[in-house]
């Protein structure tokens, strides 16, 4: 997972650099960055709260509701990031 993050971060950073001003002024780009930050916030909250007690539920077939909410929010955010990123390319 860290490998994936590193590749995305580096290549995405370089893509941004190549059209920095145009990207920065685009609402699609801003929405994408906001969604990325939300995804980071979601996983931070997860690790600081329900994940702390994962020994208690880690082997359960159905994790507790807060963990399932984290998972659902994560999926929605990441798929939105893909959609916004793709549409963004058509408005650059």
């Amino acid at each position: 997972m860290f490998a994936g993050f590193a590749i995305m971060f580096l290549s995405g950073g370089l893509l941004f650099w190549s059209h920095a001003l145009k990207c920065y002024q685009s609402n699609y780009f801003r929405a994408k960055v906001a969604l990325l930050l939300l995804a980071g916030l979601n996983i931070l909250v997860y690790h600081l709260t329900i994940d702390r007690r994962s020994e208690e539920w880690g082997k359960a077939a159905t994790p507790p509701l807060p963990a399932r909410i984290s998972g659902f929010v994560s999926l929605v955010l990441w798929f939105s990031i893909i959609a916004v990123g793709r549409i963004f390319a058509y408005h650059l």
Partner: protein
Amino acid sequence: VFWQVLQPFVNWLGATSLGTWLGESTDRVAWLFVFHLFGLTLLLGTTIVMSLRLLSLALRSYPIAQLTRDLAPWRTAGLLLSLTSGGLIFTGGAAGYYEGQWFRLKMTILAVALIFNFTFFRMVTRADDGRFSPLFNKLTGCVALLLWFGVGAAGRAIAYF
């Protein structure tokens, strides 16, 4: 010769009302690409997890056959979504895509990847642990990753060259 045989079908497909309807709107194609990416996220994501397991680089305590069963619905959904959206994108610009070298390369690798998927990869990822040698598992994982990343890379090149 093979590519020439399909040319009349491609010309017909691009000229259908669906083909012209899709081709005349950038927005429609843009949304098809979004769904194409959703599909390939599911397909590649699950393929990477299964291949890393075959390479014993991840989820080592999880039996491969169980992992395959758990991921199967998502992987199938990803494959169907990629193929459907990809087919529609192609329909919206059939003749143009068809003559591209990168498009042809992508379709060639895709054909190999699909054949590999439904033969070796399917057999190895459904087998109980220990049925095949670790080397054979690793080889299968490597080839699967190379093929699917090859499809992705060639696909990306279509847009630029």
